[in-house]
């Protein structure tokens, strides 16, 4: 495990992270080992965020670096690192807020979840298609607009109607989406932050083991 890499990741030093990945790749280090060093760095980022040493901008920056690193490593390697299961993620139809969703993507990816990000303003049909294709453990729907809660509800109803809800959990989140709204839309879990989803994936993996 490269401590240079995890430290640079934790310090958000993009140049060092990318250079170190190139060096490790050159010396034949397996991708999964590189990813686990990155994940270790991301865990420190998360910890610093909890301790209010880092703020949202640092989480966003870590996501950027993690994505850049992912490009060097290739999707095959990053997918293989998704040992906790798969999440299909997107911001609901007619909503374009994505700062939170992007943080969720990188936090989950750095904890070993394979994330399929469908982007923003995602119609229900696209969620259904991705569920059929990727057979995820959970679907994550981000929504920050009360005017779009109805779209979340409709999306979940379509997932149900298509017979895809069996064994599939629906996680929702976004600033104003509280517990009451979560019940209204028919979600399984309302996530105030990304870590709630991480915990859910971990509990699920532990139960399966």
């Amino acid at each position, binding site marked *: 495990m490269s401590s240079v890499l995890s430290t640079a990741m934790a310090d958000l030093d993009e140049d060092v992270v990318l250079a170190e990945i190139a060096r490790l790749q050159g010396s034949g280090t397996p991708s999964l080992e590189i990813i686990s060093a990155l994940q270790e760095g991301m865990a420190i980022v998360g910890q610093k965020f909890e301790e209010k040493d880092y*703020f949202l901008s640092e989480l966003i*920056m870590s996501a*950027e670096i993690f994505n850049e690193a992912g490009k060097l490593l290739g999707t095959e390697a990053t997918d293989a690192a998704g040992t906790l299961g798969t999440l299909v993620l997107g911001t609901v139809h*007619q909503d*374009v807020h994505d700062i939170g969703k*992007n943080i969720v993507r990188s936090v989950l990816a750095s904890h070993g979840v394979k994330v399929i990000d469908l982007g923003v303003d995602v119609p229900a049909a696209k969620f259904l298609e991705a569920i059929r294709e990727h057979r995820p453990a959970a679907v994550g729907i981000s929504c920050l607009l*009360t005017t779009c809660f109805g779209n979340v509800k409709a999306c979940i109803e379509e997932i149900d109607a298509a017979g895809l809800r069996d064994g599939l959990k629906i996680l929702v989140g976004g600033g104003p989406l509280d517990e*009451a709204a979560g019940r209204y839309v028919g979600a399984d879990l309302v996530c105030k932050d990304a870590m709630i989803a991480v915990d859910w994936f971990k509990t699920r993996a532990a139960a399966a083991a």
Partner: protein
Amino acid sequence: MTTPTNPGQAYGQRLARMKAAVALEKPDRTPVISWSDAFCANHVGAPMSRFSSDLIYSGEVTARSFELLPGFDAAEMAVAEPDWVAAVFLSKMKIAGRDLPEGTPWMVDEQERIAESDYDVIAERGWFGFFVPWAQQNLGITVPSYIQQSIAARIEGTKRLAAIGVPTYTVAFGGGTPLEALSAGRTMSRFVRDLHRIPDRVQAAMDATHPQMIGVVKQAIRESPVKPFSVFVGLARSSPEFFGPKLWDRFVWPYLKSMVEAIIEEGVVANLHFDSCWDRELPRLREFPKGSCVFACDHATDIRLAKKILGDRMCIKGDVPSAMLSYGTPDEVRAYCKALIADMGDGFILSPACTMPANAKLENVMAMLEAVEA
């Protein structure tokens, strides 16, 4: 409290109430105001397409909505200008009838629209040297003529509201921090990366932008035919929730402080419309003179903490949660507002968190209005 039926008297009573709250004196009752935005179109059954694209019409519809809800002491804004809101964020707006089905509220289409090299262009040519040709080319907006139209519509909207006895609470002249536009035009993630990789170039662009914006705001206040009650300083991504002290002290606070001071210098109230969580930096806002600002929060800031820290310096406005207004019950809304009024005391204006949700239930809006009546 009965509202006088004469519009002039009603206007005076409402204005006095707001002034007392801002001056931290005791109003006859807690003022209640709303930035009703797209809610107005739904409320009066006006087509969203026209409301979103016709400035004068948006003012008419806004006035109609307020006429139907006489409990409000002010309309926060007199017109809705989605295309302009998007333009100042270097973005395009999707609106009903043009890009979206009828009835859909507008949607900012935020993409990476400016390049890293544009920081240098802004640093060299100043904000307007960059923005005016950029808006023409990328958004099809001719800035000078748009501003003329917008000013005319705002004046007309303000007069229309005054004619039914409703003051207009605020007007936006571009008061904010350069971070808001740049982080939107670059997208938040690119922008954050820029702050880490090329902070000096970002700052050079900000330093070239900000004095010009201050100049525009000051001039607009002076030339305004009706003296605005307050001038809008709208911040969201500048919030301490996004940036730790180091970045915030460099890229937010100096700009925020000088903008607010410039507005106060012109003798108008600074409307600190600060979305997201400001808890950490609330003490900083004590630096502004007593009674010169209103701190408006969107339910992400702890409003009671704001009262504790700022209550003896400035009026606080907020913060009925969006989800409660759209999906809660009138009882919930009434209870929330009553508790807030009791805890906040004088120097408080009741309002929705940020804007009234487009799909707020009318009975919930009514419950909010009832809550201020003893």
